[in-house]
Each structure stands twice: as C-alpha cells, then as structure tokens.
C-alpha cells in the first residue's frame, strides 16, 4: 500500500461548491472513512460527514467514492485509489446536499411513515410458531441497514427524480418483508401498485448490485412482488417476463 494518498473531497452546500484536495498518510487497513476522519482531525475539523458504527452495520457513511456509491467504512483505500494515489469522494447525488458529504435523506423517512406495520390476527396463538425455512427470506430483507445506496442508484429516482411516484428499492424490500412474513394478514398489493409505484421499476438490477448487505433486491423482493401485484393489475414488465418465460 502507498504511504500517502490524495483525497479529492466535495466541499459545499446547496448554493454550490468545489472539490478540495487533501494529502493523507495511510496506515494498514485504512478505509475511506478513516481518511476522512484524519482530515477532520488534523486539517479541517469542519468537514461534514455522517458515520456511527465504522463496521458496516448502521448505514450512515454512504457516499460516492470515485463515482460509485459505497459505504466509506467498508471501502479500503487501496481498493479504490488510482495509479497516482487519488480517491474522489462526493455526496450521494440523488438527494439534496446539506453540506459536504451530508445529504438530506428525510424523504425516505417520510415514505416509511406511510407503510402499515405488521398485522397479525388476534386468533394466532402467542408466542408465535414459525419455521426457520419460512422466515429466512424475510430475514434477508430485514438485513437492510438503510444506507439508501440503492435509492441513490435507482434511475427512477436518480435520473427521473420520480420521488412523487416511486418509493424506490429500499421500500420494495421493506414491503416484501412484511408481505412475506408468515403471519401478516394485510393485502399490500394495492398499496404496492397505487401508492408505492412498483410499476416504475423496470428491473435493471442496479440497486441489487450496490447493496452492501447483499440483499437480492430485484430478484427476491421486487420480482415476486410484481408477480403478486400482476394478479390484480397490469404491469408491462411482468407481462414481458411471462412471455419470455413461456417462449
């Protein structure tokens, strides 16, 4: 590993900004978040970024490292610096910037408020009995650490800014975790289609590629949800899928 690296970090707010360069001495195992915190400690204490666990468990430190959405605490510097030792770090693009690497993700929390919680009928005996095989899929979805990297790459939100129509992959995962819970008795199909806008997704799988928890967002959450919804509603992608499968 190199002894010194150059970090090009975006500094600015809603009114504009620029990329600033910082030289940082490395040490073994250094991750991008360590480098940012070195800058805070010895060069500029006002550099804004979010972090909590430094162990890829909380989903706070999301940023675009060399243009790719990543958790800064899970990205070793030697994996990402170029031949000249340079790494660029920018805030997530799909959300409004607050300052430096901190963006306004409050939209996600607003969407979460509209999702009906788990509902188990009163006549189901307590404590619950559920088999591991029946909950493993739900557990996969519940690994989500709300880093919003998937929301950041989904082109419906990123390129078309359709936050008014589509809840995005994070909430497809959440809805699927409720829908596939063995004891939930809600019918979430109408909500998925009418409110959460599952029809906007055209299964490009970009979300699933960036998920640090390796949740198969498209394959395991979105496609099965689309199948269920399509029993009631018309969805062009799902029709296509069906045709492909038949041929």
């Amino acid at each position, binding site marked *: 590993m190199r002894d010194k690296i150059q970090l090009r970090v975006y500094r600015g707010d809603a009114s504009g900004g620029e990329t600033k360069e910082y030289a940082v001495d490395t040490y073994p195992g250094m991750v991008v978040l360590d480098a940012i915190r070195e800058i805070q400690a010895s060069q500029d204490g*006002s550099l804004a970024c979010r972090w*909590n666990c430094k162990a890829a468990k*909380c989903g706070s430190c999301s940023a675009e490292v060399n243009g790719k959405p990543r958790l800064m605490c899970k990205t070793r510097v030697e994996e990402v610096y170029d031949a000249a030792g340079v790494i660029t770090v920018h805030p997530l693009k799909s959300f409004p910037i607050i300052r430096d690497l901190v963006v306004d993700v409050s939209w996600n929390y607003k969407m979460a408020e509209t999702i009906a*919680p788990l509902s188990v009928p009163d006549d189901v005996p307590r404590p619950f009995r*559920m088999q591991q095989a029946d909950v493993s899929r739900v557990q996969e979805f519940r690994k989500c650490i*709300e880093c919003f990297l998937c929301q950041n790459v989904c082109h419906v939100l990123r390129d078309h800014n359709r936050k008014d129509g589509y809840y995005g992959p994070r909430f497809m995962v959440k809805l699927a975790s409720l829908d596939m819970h063995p004891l939930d008795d809600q019918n979430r199909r109408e909500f998925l289609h009418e409110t959460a806008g599952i029809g906007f997704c055209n299964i490009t799988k970009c979300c699933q590629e960036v998920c640090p928890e390796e949740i198969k967002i498209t394959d395991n959450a979105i496609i099965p949800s689309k199948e269920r919804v399509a029993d009631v509603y018309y969805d062009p992608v799902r029709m296509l899928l069906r045709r492909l499968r038949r041929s």
Partner: protein
Amino acid sequence: MEAYETLKYDVLIIGAGGAGLRAAISVCERGLRCGVVCKSLLGKAHTVMAEGGAAAALGNMGEKDSWEVHFRDTMVGGASLNNPRIVEIFAHEAIDRVLELEQYGAVFDRTPEGLISQRPFGGHTYRRLNHVGDRTGLELIRTLQDKAVSLHPTFHMEVTITSLLRDGQRVIGAYGYDRISGKPIVFQARAVVLATGGWGRMYRYTSNSWESTGDGAAMALEAGAELIDMEMVQFHPTGMLWPPSMRGILVTEAVRGEGGVLRNASGDRFMYTPEYTPERYRGKFAESTEEAERWLDDKSANRRPPELLPRDEVSRAIYKEVKAGRATEHGGVHLDVSHRGAAYVKRKLPAMYDQFLHLGGVDITREPMEVYPTVHYTMGGIRVDPETCASTMPGLFAAGECAAGLHGANRLGGNSLTDILVFGKRAGDGAAAFAEATDHGVVDPDQIAREEATLNAPLGRPAAETPATIGAELQEAMQTDAMIERTEVCLSRCLDRIHELQQRCDQIGVEGGRTYNPAWHAARDLRFQLRLSEVIVRSAILRKESRGAHWRTDYPNMDPDWGRRNVVARMVNSVVDVDTTPLPEMPEHLRLVMNEGAK
C-alpha cells in the same frame, strides 16, 4: 440572547436507541404528546451495532431456565453490586418484552419447534440469548423504530441536547441545537426521559460510536441528579486488534458462544489455567478441553468452556497473558472458530465473517482472529428508582445504558438489549404518569443564556486548542491510567491530566460556521466527556477493593464491606463530590432465590 424556537411536549425523550424508542411507544400508547430527540438519523443509534442477542429466560432450548436462574446469574456476574429489585423486575419482564418485540415484527432465528432460538453466552447458566444471527441490535432497533413511527411521536433527528432546564428543583425541559442548521431549540416538557446511552468514547480503543460521549449522564449530574457505580467500566475481552484502523471494533461474544476458543502465542488454551477461574465459579465450567469439546454437541451433560466466564474475568486473563509475554504478533491473543467449519461459521456469524474478511483481511473460517480487550459498556450511570426509572431529580427519568443499578460491577452479555426493553417501557410509563399529574413549569431565561454562551464560545475564537487534540489526549490518559489494571498512583495521575484538559477546554476555537460543523459539535461533547471522566476516576480512587470490572492491584481482594456500598457522585456547589451510599438490602424472597443456586 439569540432567538430560539420553543417546542412543547408532555414527555420529552432524549435518545432514540432501544431504550428511547421503547419509552416513546409507552408514552404514545397513553395518548400523550411525545417528542423524541437524537443526535444521528433514526435507526443509527448505538443499539444498531449489538450483535449477540437479547437475554431472557424463555427456556426454548429444553433446559430448565427460569427468571430465578437469570436473576442469580445477573447478580453473580455483577459481583452482587446490583440493585436486587431492579434485577428482579428485569429477569421477570425480559421474557414479556422479547415476546412483545416478536409481535411488533421482529423475526428471530427459530428452533426446530418453531420457537425463538437461544444461544449460550458468558455468565448465563443456560442458552438464553434470543438472536438473529449476529445482527440482533439491528433487528431490535428497526422493529422498535417501525412500531414507534406508527404511533406518531414527533422525531427530531440530528438535534443535540446540551443542557437540562430546571424550574426550582424540577426538570422541565431541555436546551439543544439542530446539528444541520446550528439553530438553538428549547424543549418544554412535563417530564423528561434520558436514554442517551453510554460513554466508551472516553477511551482510545472502544467498540462505541462517536455518539457515546455520555452527554445524558453528565447533564443529569449537572442538573442535580445522582450518579452511581461510575467506576464500573466494562472491558470486553475481544476487540479487534489488527489492522490499526479496526482496533477496538467488537468481536461478538457469540464467537465463543458458538465454540470459539482462546489461545495465547504458544497455542495454549490459557483459560484452563485454574487461577483464571475465581472461587465463586469453580466447578461450573469445563476443566478439560475434551469436556468443552463434548459440550458443543451435548449442552446438558457437559459444562461450558471457561472461555464463557463473565467478561471481567476473561478480559483480565487476556491482559495477564499479554503482560506475561505470551502475546501474539500485535500484542493480543488468538480467538479461533475455524474448527466449527466454514458453513456453520458463515450461517451463525455472517457479520463477523464479513467484517474480518473485508476489513481485517482474515478469513475466520480458516484462521484465528487476533483480539485484545476493548472498552465496551458503562455499568454506572444515573441512579434510578426500580419501579418508575425516576432519577433523584423530580421530572427526570432515565433508562438504558445511561442508567445504573441493573448490572452491578459487571454486565453479562445480552443483558443490555433486554435492559433497554424492560426499563425503556418502565421509564416511558413512569414519565407519562408523572406528566399526567403536573404542569409545564416555567423556563428560566438565565439558564438558556448560560448554556448559549458555553455552546457558542468556540465559534470564531482563535484556535489555540482544537477539540480533536484535547479529545485525543483525554482518550490517551484514560486508556493508560483508568483501564483494566488500576492503582491509586495511576488514577491520581489521570485525574491531574483531566483537570489540566478541563482548563484547556476554554481555549478551544473552531473554524467554520454553524451548519453541520463537526468540530463545533465535538467542542461541546468534549465537556461532557471530561466531566464524566473526572467522575469515573474519582469513583475509582474511592473504591479501595477489586470487584467486577474494577481491578485495583493495590487492593487486589474483594472486600465485604465495600460489597455493601455503591459509590455515588453528585454536584455540590458546582464541584463533583464522590461518596458512598448503602446498597439496597436484598429482600428475603430474593435471598432464598440466591441460596437455591448455591446448593
């Protein structure tokens, strides 16, 4: 004085970890107006990092577990410095709270019968840790977050509270600032709940996040409430040691629960050294590696390996091995779980596998990990009433890691996640009942002006000192002189350092403005850290014995007289005063429960 926004609630909850969220659920269910404040985004509090599980005597594993055994284990693990009534409530109600969590939507790992699966952990007689792989904290916080959100309290994310407001001898609100805009906010409430977590960040190597600066306990102390057991800081035996960027990050005890073994540099299973198993645990642990081997497959016919002794004992053993020159390459010991097979390790410890592979460059299914104790948990904190979680200041309640009494001199793994459920609920109920019977009180502008001056002083002042340098020096001092092994000499040296740093705090200057400025935030947090460090060290000097996590090599034995007293700290004329207070008596029915176990 600057213009500020005033927000009024029936109950204000400071903190949105497990304790704060569970309290919010109780307050909302009673139909009261509830505000919840946290320094980070929702769902990112420390609780999210918990791995191993939540302890409750569900008895799902075919063993004869009961609240009585859980009570006993917790008292023994805490070296009997615990408040017996708090432990009794805890052991009883932990069961209901875990089952309730499942009904809120938590999806625990299952037994073949379809019940919640439980794993063994240090100091617990039976398999008792309800878990989801090694990400139990995430499951717990997300479940409580979703449940709380559905009941509509008002959340104030990324807001830091910096002092409690009083009307005479009663807490009636809090002052804070919005981390994003930097603007001040005054909260008025009929009752206030502190659920602000612990203070591991006083030490250089810790498993704790930046949030753990002890704000809540420091504010409570400054507002007139009492703190107890502050000398009791838990050193978790297994923190990551290498690479340096990962130093201190936790290696869950579940690794040992799932059969992981400890070895020193010569390859010895040093935990079998008889002197590492103190008298009160003799006969309860496997005495040969063969028996430990058999335990993996048959838990009822064999005793557990000594790797699963309570954390204070295992940490001390590792410390002694290293000091005796039997350290591994980077100055620790080996923790090895590779003999359990790759498939098993990946299924039971997926997050650990990932953490070491990606961040440590170690494949734990093939090679051992290098570990060394890391600062992990704070047993001491705000003194509370067992029934309602009321502090000694009227109007102020506390629950979770910032409160004291449950864990005594040493916490058992898994007891914190159920602590925050049980006492989060009780604090919410207690605060709600108090709020229903009282008014809003009157805000005193002088208190606001004083806090405003402290908070804003570093802005624009020439940076003769920075929060980063003073913070690092404090961590270094605590790490060297207030760690596992303590003496009067090193503790006194540490106290001098703290006083010097407190003085230098007044020279801190920060660049930049008030919008999301981490240096400015850290400047205020640092005052809380220094205050609590002072209390920790002074309490540690006062307790002249060794008990639980508090190991004084100048007083190496447990002293029965000290076993009847808690160290208590309060502010007297703006100065910290430490003293002792009698430990609550163990009632007869609980004494019987204890004796039952001694048979």
